[in-house]
């Protein structure tokens, strides 16, 4: 008769096995995961692994979720990973990516005319082994479409970054990581501040809040101290 501790341990291990991202691509792990420079230890220890979908929820244009997403992608792009950007609204401004230090020549820009073409090309790009990151803005997504995208990312071993309005927070999600981003007024002279809330990280008890700041001058993200003390590292999505 197994003791209570043993039973709990077995169940925990099984749960971890179920929750672990299944990478079906057979693509070798990247030496670097998707992560923010300067935020080591927060969210994940080794960076988010290949094959994950990440949702960035924010309210309205100008909230800065794309800035945070590009900052997370920057190191990957500099290491030669290709970023496919679905730009249905045709508003992407390449000098903006340049400002954040992302080389625009690593970007493949897709501007389809029809919405179903957009979803089709997202799936194709996520499934492609030659692609590193797929970034898109999607508002409406059915659970079935979402699941298809998630499977495509797993097969292709790509990171899928989905920028969505905060109103989609209550909708079902297949993303491995969900982040809620709220811009905060910053007291400093330069720099930009956000409140980041982890709504979900696969394989971990989520719900963590941090306040981060991006400084043009130092070109890096950092945790703002008063909230940083409350955070703990979650080693969940690491490969």
């Amino acid at each position, binding site marked *: 008769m197994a003791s209570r501790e043993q039973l709990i341990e077995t169940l925990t291990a099984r749960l971890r096995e179920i929750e672990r991202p299944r990478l079906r691509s057979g693509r070798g792990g990247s030496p670097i995961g998707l992560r923010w420079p300067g935020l080591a230890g927060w969210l994940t220890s080794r960076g988010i692994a290949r094959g994950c979908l990440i949702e960035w929820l924010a309210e309205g*244009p*100008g*909230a800065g979720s794309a800035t945070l997403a590009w900052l997370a992608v920057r190191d990957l792009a500099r290491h030669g990973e290709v970023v496919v950007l679905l730009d249905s609204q045709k508003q992407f401004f*390449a000098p903006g990516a340049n400002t954040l230090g992302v080389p625009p020549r690593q970007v*493949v820009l897709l501007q389809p005319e029809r919405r179903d073409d957009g979803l089709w090309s997202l799936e194709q790009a996520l499934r492609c082994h030659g692609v590193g990151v797929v970034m898109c803005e999607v508002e409406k997504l059915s659970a079935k479409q979402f699941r298809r995208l998630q499977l495509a990312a797993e097969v292709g071993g790509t990171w899928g970054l989905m920028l969505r309005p905060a109103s989609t927070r209550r909708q079902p999600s297949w993303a491995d990581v969900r982040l809620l981003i709220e811009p905060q007024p*910053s007291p400093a002279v330069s720099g930009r501040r956000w409140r980041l809330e982890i709504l979900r990280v696969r394989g971990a008890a989520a719900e963590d809040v941090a306040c981060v700041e991006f400084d043009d001058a130092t070109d890096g993200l950092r945790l703002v101290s008063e909230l940083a003390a409350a955070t703990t590292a979650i080693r969940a999505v690491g490969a």
Partner: protein
Amino acid sequence: MVFTNTGGRGARVVTSSRWPEEQGVRPGLPLAEAQLLAGDHSPSPLGGENFQSPSPPWGEGLGVRSGPSVCPQSTPPTHFEPHDPAADVAALRRLALESQQFAPLVGVEDADAPQCLLLDASGCTHLFGGEQSFVETVARHFRERGLSARVALAPTIGAAWGAARWVARPRAPVVVPLEHLASLLSHLPAAALRLSEATVETLRELGLHSIGQVKQLPRSGLPSRLGHDVMRRLDQAFGDAPEVLTVERASPPIEATWAGEEPLADRAMLVAICRQLVSQIVGQLAARGEGVQRLVCRAAGAAGRRAEWVVNLVIPCEAAAHLVELLRLQLERAALPDDVSHVSLTASATAPLGLRQRDLFGDEVNPDRDRELGALLNRLSSRLGPRAVLRPRVVPDAQPEFAAAVEPWLESDAAARSTAADGFAGGTRPLRLLTPPEAISVRVAGPEAVPVRFCWQRREHRVVRSWGPERIETGWWRDAHVRRDYFRVEVHSGHWFWLFHCLTEHDWFLHGAFD
């Protein structure tokens, strides 16, 4: 446009278009001097087409740098390009094929840097009304193409070569009759024998300036003193030795067709037929070691209705399955003629498989990634259309509307991809740009007219911090003269926007958001 060549003595001009030539740019001139002559001219109203372009095109690989990004007022209008000898030869080959309208056998001269087209006009001239009118027709053809050509007709290739260079003028073609061959040749300089520079130099040192002088030398001593070439060229010029003309031939188009007695029932049949035809085409190309770069599919119905689909590829492809998939993506959504009874596939552009483009992104070579990615780009372009699969580029232009450019992946070539400049030292720019900018109502404060409140999308935004103004001004030669003060603002909700005050019309606009 000026082409330059980097040799042992630094970059020099190889050739140039008319405008720089009028400014005194000559072949052989060092690049720095050519830039001085053609480069830094301030725009004059009669300056020609060069001044009208919104952003002056710039040479990247020559150490030519664009001017300050603020205002391209002082940027020179001349475009400098490195000289590409391979492209020259390819262009000459195309001209050779084009010249087959005058004579069936046309070739390019056999030299390291060929400059001459050779036409075998035997038995052709009477069709043009005689020899004189033949050469005039040829000369006129090239003149109408905008090319300056010197044309000469002579009994031997060597004599025609020499006469074209030393006797003919662009508007005065020359015919050398057989009886004048010897006298013409003996007066031509020794360089007209098509010898290497070193041999010509030796002849000059010996005091032999004309072919006539060389001809008078004892033949027995020639090979040992001057090499076998002199003797061979001399005999060829006088018609005593045969000379072979290497004829340019256009490679036959790679094609496969299907014609059925009964019209096709449905799309699935059409795809099945395409699969067969593609495998035939790939088989034909495999023998040449080439892959498909562009595939044209034509279907015709019994009633004469036709349809055509074109598949363009980013990198040459030899995989039949991939080509069929690309075709299927187009066929699925296309309107077909009702009763297709004839299908033809043509590989209208092919490229050697071994000669892969450098690499898709111009960084370190990564063949696996590029193959996968090339296939993806082909698929996307095939379904979304080439204008939807784009490569973004930062353009060094002060006006935000012109600071970003996109070009279809299918049309951008590898060289352009690798030299694309990413280094733009402009100010902080947003990730989202609204085109056109949206007019907003703004309340300003202070003597510098800093925005404090504005209304956008039926919501009032109170500005808590702002950075600016950043003055952006463009020159008078643009269609619309632009004078704006840009502000980066943070509103009370923490959102960041990019506003500008139009100083010419005193209106405010929202131009972007720092997403």
